[in-house]
């Protein structure tokens, strides 16, 4: 911490003293570099932090600069008044460009944003209000009392302050609630939605931030050069900006700044060989994505990991060093169970789900009482996970109704359900890979809505206070689940059993009323399964109703009060575990005593199925279950 403060201080002093050692041209280059740094921060926030491919950053830059130029030269605004309007106009543009992100992602978004940027360039090149290809000159000098901004040396300080504030604000966003959510969305937007993150609003926020920085950069640029022309905002410069962000490290704002300043200086230095320089950037970008996808900013941690791996022989567990261990789970305080006559917490009525002609769920009805632990079992492909996806809002039922806590939630989005009190885990673990374990928990703990981001602009102490509260609760939760030793680890570096526990802790962070566990015991060893049973029981005793899909029948038998058996998309049995395993339909579904007798409709008996004599071959499709073989009879108690 001290070291960091010292570094920061040294950097500040160096930045302050820098102009004294530079010639007038050099300071100009530095000023340009700082403007690119601001642009790169915006780009990093959208692309690296939020995962929104935004190739219109250079257009945001242009909107800011041009708005300022037009307002000052044509409409007689003062510089600062025009600057405010320009930034607002840029943000409005950013939100407009971001709208497509609600419908498309990844490359689609890249193309649309790039297309809109091209449209913008086309417009400024041809419109008369923008001065066409000649651009607009004669932008007035920004004035500050007592400071002569016509001196590039003094302008440098203005930029430095704006940049430092911009970087500081960016880092503040990234490290607190909003940024954590944006990063969670980037890593896994499905899981983030299930944690209550309002994905559409967050995507718009990413564009808002990108355009805010773009607008600021545009204003500073117009004030510095006092002339704007289309070539500054070309697609070529867009790609250079992209190169800056990738080379610096898109996930680190500091990396983006380093990339931007570094590349601007290199570009200037190589200005006599600009084409070779361009060739160089291109090659470096390609090499970076293949060999160092985290950019320059990621190299220290990669190097550390490499060294660790060398030292420990195998890197996988290196991070979870010997002293760190999974501690026992500390049970929740039990609350009194609601009476069983209460209204069902979850009520699924005749739900059917079709996928392109394939019926995954067929008229499934099921109710879960509050305080229950319900098991859902069934063979592969019987529709269990589909049912979870329908309950948690990932899929919309083709027909039928889902009711949760007395409300119809058939068409609710995952984040809405999360806010109502539905939490879930995923069969294939969907932890946010680039976040630490603590941050994974924090994302889920955070129940503030996205619209409270006004606090970031106007009342930062509110954000800080909330953050402190969240961190305290996260620490409690980590300790409860015995995960405190791994709080700062990347989830991917931890053993599988611990990752499973993190997922449960994360789902429990919001204290849901209903917890859906999708194969929580998959990949766990015997001891871990035992611990899991204890955790699930305690969760139920704390007042959370649990529904779990599980293949480990031993666990289901010991844990669940009631078990629902799915097969072929329909419910074939429901009852206590003992009842269910004794039900002929279930034995058939699992062991195939009467090859899939769960298909209810009678089928014409096909040509006699030939089979080796001793084992009775399933007689095609006789609807009632054929007599179970002796083996099953013996086993039934």
């Amino acid at each position, binding site marked *: 911490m001290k070291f960091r403060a010292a570094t920061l201080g040294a950097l500040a002093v160096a930045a302050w003293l820098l102009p004294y050692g530079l010639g007038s041209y050099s300071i100009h280059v530095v000023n340009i570099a700082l403007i690119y740094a601001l642009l790169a921060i915006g780009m990093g926030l959208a692309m690296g932090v939020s995962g929104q491919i935004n190739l219109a950053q250079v257009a945001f830059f242009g909107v800011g600069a041009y708005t300022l130029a037009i307002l000052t030269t044509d409409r007689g605004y003062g510089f600062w008044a025009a600057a405010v309007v320009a930034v607002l106009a840029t943000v409005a543009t950013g939100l407009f460009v971001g709208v497509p992100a609600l419908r498309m992602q990844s490359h689609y978004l890249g193309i649309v944003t790039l297309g809109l940027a091209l449209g913008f360039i086309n417009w400024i090149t041809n419109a008369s209000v923008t001065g066409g290809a000649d651009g607009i000159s004669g932008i007035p000098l920004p004035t500050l009392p007592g400071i002569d901004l016509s001196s590039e040396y003094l302008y440098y300080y203005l930029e430095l302050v704006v940049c430092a504030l911009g970087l500081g604000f960016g880092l503040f966003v990234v490290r607190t609630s909003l940024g954590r959510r944006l990063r969670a969305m980037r890593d896994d937007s499905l899981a983030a939605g299930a944690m209550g993150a309002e994905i559409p609003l967050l995507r718009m926020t990413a564009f808002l931030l990108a355009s805010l920085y773009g607008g600021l950069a545009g204003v500073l640029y117009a004030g510095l050069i006092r002339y704007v022309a289309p070539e500054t905002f070309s697609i070529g410069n867009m790609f250079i900006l992209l190169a800056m962000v990738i080379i610096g490290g898109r996930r680190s704002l500091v990396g983006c700044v380093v990339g931007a300043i570094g590349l601007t200086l290199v570009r200037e230095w190589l200005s006599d060989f600009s084409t070779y320089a361009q060739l160089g950037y291109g090659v470096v970008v390609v090499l970076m994505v293949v060999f160092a996808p985290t950019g320059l900013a990621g190299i220290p941690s990669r190097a550390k990991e490499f060294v660790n791996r060398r030292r420990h022989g195998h890197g*996988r*567990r290196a991070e979870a060093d010997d002293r760190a261990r999974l501690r026992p789970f500390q049970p929740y305080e039990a609350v009194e169970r609601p009476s069983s006559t209460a209204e069902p917490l979850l009520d699924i009525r005749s739900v059917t789900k079709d996928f392109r002609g*394939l019926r995954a769920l067929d008229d499934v009805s099921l109710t879960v009482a509050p305080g229950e632990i319900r098991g859902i079992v069934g*063979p*592969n*492909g019987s529709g269990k996970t589909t049912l979870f996806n329908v309950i948690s809002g990932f899929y919309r039922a083709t027909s039928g109704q889902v009711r949760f806590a007395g409300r119809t939630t058939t068409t609710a989005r995952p984040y809405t359900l999360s806010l109502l009190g539905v939490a879930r885990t995923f069969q294939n673990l969907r932890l946010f890979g680039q976040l630490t374990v603590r941050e994974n928990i924090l994302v889920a703990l955070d129940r503030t809505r996205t619209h409270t981001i006004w606090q970031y602009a106007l009342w930062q102490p509110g954000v800080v206070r909330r953050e402190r509260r969240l961190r305290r609760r996260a620490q409690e939760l980590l300790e409860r689940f015995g995960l405190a030793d791994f709080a700062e680890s990347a989830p991917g570096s931890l*053993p*599988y059993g611990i990752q499973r526990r993190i997922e449960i802790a994360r789902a429990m962070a919001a204290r849901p009323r209903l917890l859906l566990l999708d*194969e929580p015991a*998959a*990949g766990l060893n015997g001891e871990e399964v035992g611990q899991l049973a204890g955790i699930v029981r305690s969760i139920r005793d704390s007042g959370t109703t649990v529904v779990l899909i599980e*293949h*480990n*029948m*031993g*666990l*289901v*038998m010991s844990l669940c009060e009631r078990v629902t058996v799915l097969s*072929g998309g329909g419910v074939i049995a429901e009852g206590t575990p003992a009842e269910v*395993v004794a039900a002929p339909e279930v*034995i058939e579904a*699992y*062991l*195939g*005593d*009467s*090859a*899939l*007798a769960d*298909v209810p409709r009678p*089928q*014409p*008996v*096909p*040509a006699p*199925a*030939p*089979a*080796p004599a*001793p*084992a*009775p*071959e*399933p007689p*095609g*499709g*006789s609807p009632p279950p054929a007599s179970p*073989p*002796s*083996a*099953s009879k*013996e*086993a039934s108690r």
Partner: protein
Amino acid sequence: MRTISFRRTAAPDPGTPGTPATPATLAVDDLSVHYGGVRAVSSISFSVAPGASVGIIGANGAGKTSTLKALMGLVPRGGGRITLGERDLTRVRARDMVRHGIGYVPEGRHVFPGLTVEKNLMLGAYARRWDDGTRSTLAEVHELFPVLGEMGGRLAGALSGGQQQMLSIGRALMAGPRILLLDEPSMGLSPKLVGEILNALKRLREEGLSLLLVEQNAKLTFGATSHCLVMENGSVAMTGTSEELSQDPRVRRIYLGL
């Protein structure tokens, strides 16, 4: 070019250059599979004699599919040895397994949905030259599953589940394999269709093709195989003849976790 007729009991078609397969035993020794830090399959060993039919059964998540995928090389093989007859296949890449006579019918059928049935079948013979040999194999597949001939021009994605399963098996047969690996061919099918599939498997077996059948449906597997392995938590819990196992109450306990 190896063009093995899988139908050897019937009189060969005049145009069939059907050379019988050299008998070879598929032997899997000490095969393990890891995903990340998780051990999905630990040191499993078994063999399939020429013309034999062996089943691997077990509940969901027992490691059956992982075993088959590792055998095919579709997931990294974590140690162990795989041989077919004299030939060591341990280091053979997935795409070359078919050239060594291993046919694979994946779980969930995995036909090429946007291609016609005919094209799917022809792609099954990708590793061979498309010539008279393939055409006669195609005729044999059509005889085994007449519906594939009738639906030749249909897109595979438009077929019913059972037809897709037949197509998936037919596609694997097109390469002229010595042994066929089947992963859950009964999954999601109606009894009638399961019956048809079993019929076809029985015919293939009678014609000398070795089968390795991975199934959750134990009863079905006992009927279609001579020997079985019962897997539990990534390792072999029981082995025996299918007949013995079908009488053994422990199988049910393993399944139902009792």
